[in-house]
């Protein structure tokens, strides 16, 4: 049976693993072995600022996504399967929609003369307009929109595995709905919440399109800096060392995620 595996393994070895090794190699070489690309990363304040940006934006977006995603997962979990199948389309549609379509829609929605600001100006006058685009607000809104389906599906899966008898038992013994939620539903959903948070954090750290299109010049993230070095300065060494840092960062959180999921990267059921 293992013979069926061979083509995929060879393919991934040739066009995924080898290119990654080339990145690692490039990050350490300049004629011969060197640490100069990494030294440049720690010596210039720009790189530390972008690292700080990346962590801040990722944390902010993940937190906001949890705040908005948990109620949705909870709401979906309490519907009849039929109604849930219908409502879940609201979460699946953005998941299947191109990030470019979403980014375009947000530029139209959030721009200085966009739909939202036109509405604000119509009611409160021009002075009340707010800057929602090409700054951190825009990036966080765009990223939260991108991350929500991942968070909702992860938490929903964990809510649906909860044994309803536990809640029924608590109810019979006189617990009110708030108490049932805070003592049973919420604690039991924690592994799902943790998995969702880690997954969203991993995804946000590597975001490229959203900060490039919705963020300001000072809100660039690590991915955008990699792009900048490939395209503008043609400095492949620094682009590669940045990439290695990004891989190490995501790998740490991916290992944590695998741990939360009992040793598997992807839930098996």
């Amino acid at each position: 049976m293992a013979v069926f595996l061979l083509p995929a393994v060879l393919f991934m070895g040739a066009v995924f693993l080898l290119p990654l090794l080339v990145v690692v190699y490039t990050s350490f070489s300049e004629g011969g072995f060197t640490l100069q690309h990494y030294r440049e990363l720690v010596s210039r304040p720009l790189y530390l600022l972008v690292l700080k940006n990346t962590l801040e934006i990722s944390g902010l977006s993940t937190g906001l996504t949890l705040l908005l995603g948990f109620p949705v997962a909870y709401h979906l979990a309490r519907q009849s399967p039929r109604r849930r199948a219908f409502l879940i389309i609201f979460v699946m549609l953005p998941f299947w929609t191109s990030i470019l379509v979403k980014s375009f829609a947000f530029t139209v929605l959030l721009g200085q003369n966009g739909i939202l600001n036109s509405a604000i100006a119509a009611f409160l006058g021009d002075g009340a307009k707010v800057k929602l685009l090409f700054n951190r607000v825009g990036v966080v809104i765009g990223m939260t929109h991108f991350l929500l389906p991942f968070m909702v599906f992860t938490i929903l899966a964990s809510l649906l595995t909860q044994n309803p008898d536990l809640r029924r038992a608590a109810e019979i013994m006189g617990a009110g709905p708030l108490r049932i939620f805070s003592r049973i539903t919420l604690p039991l959903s924690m592994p799902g919440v943790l998995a969702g948070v880690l997954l969203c954090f991993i995804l946000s750290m590597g975001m490229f399109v959203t900060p490039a299109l919705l963020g300001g010049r000072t809100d660039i993230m690590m991915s955008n800096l990699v792009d900048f070095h490939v395209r503008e300065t043609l400095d492949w060494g620094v682009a590669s060392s940045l990439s290695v840092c990004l891989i190490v960062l995501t790998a740490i959180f991916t290992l944590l995620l695998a741990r939360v999921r009992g040793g598997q990267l992807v839930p098996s059921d």
Partner: protein
Amino acid sequence: MASSRTPAGRRSAPSRAAGFLAWAVYGFLVLPSLIIVPMSFGDKDEFQFPPQSLSLYLYEKYFFESNWMDATFESLKVAVATTVLSLLLGVGAAYGLARSDFRGRKFLTLFLLSPMFVPVIVIALGLYLYLGSAHLTGTTLALVVGHTVLTLPFVIVTVLAGIRHVDRNLEVAATVMGASRWTVLRRVTLPLLRPTILVAALFSFLTSFDEVVVSYFIAHVQQQTLPVKMYSSIHWEISPVLAAISALLTALSLVTCLAVAAVQRDRQHG
């Protein structure tokens, strides 16, 4: 958590609060798709919401003017090839993983799924340096290969989950009756997996058709894909044609998403 009501028939405070917030979030989730549609029927080269009068002007521009269509065909070509390649590699790999037991199987699974957790920009840079040194950037083959790296893990995960629903006794029965391993796969397992494979195919197609980061790194200016052209257009000067393209892409996403939902519902009931 099937019942949404307490025995007395009134809804509890947490579920009412969640319901209110949930509907607000549903609104936020579909809002971008919703505003695209009326905008795409605008009749001018500037943005107006809602448009003053409805027309197909932007659609005409997309279909008949400039080179948006070339980019669309390039994307279509790449997406079809990517779908075929990821299914060929992915279905086999998932079958191999599910139906065999050997040392290092877990490690191999981890390896095959790992592109899901590596930032796309790093994969893009790797392919750019690696294929660039072989002078393969700027070819359709390079795009297909690059996209397959991204779609293959998802095909494997989807098919692995699907195989778990396939009754192994059917395969055993076929083997007992003298079918070869290959015949079992072709005549028993694959037909049972048809809905799963359909979902995996839709996913690969749409992922490749919408992929921008890898394409942006390894495609040449002359063979832009639709997403790369859209990216440049949003980045440098927003063209109103984007509204028409976005509306069409949203329709494509909606159809795909409904198809997947239907397949998954059938599998649960069937």
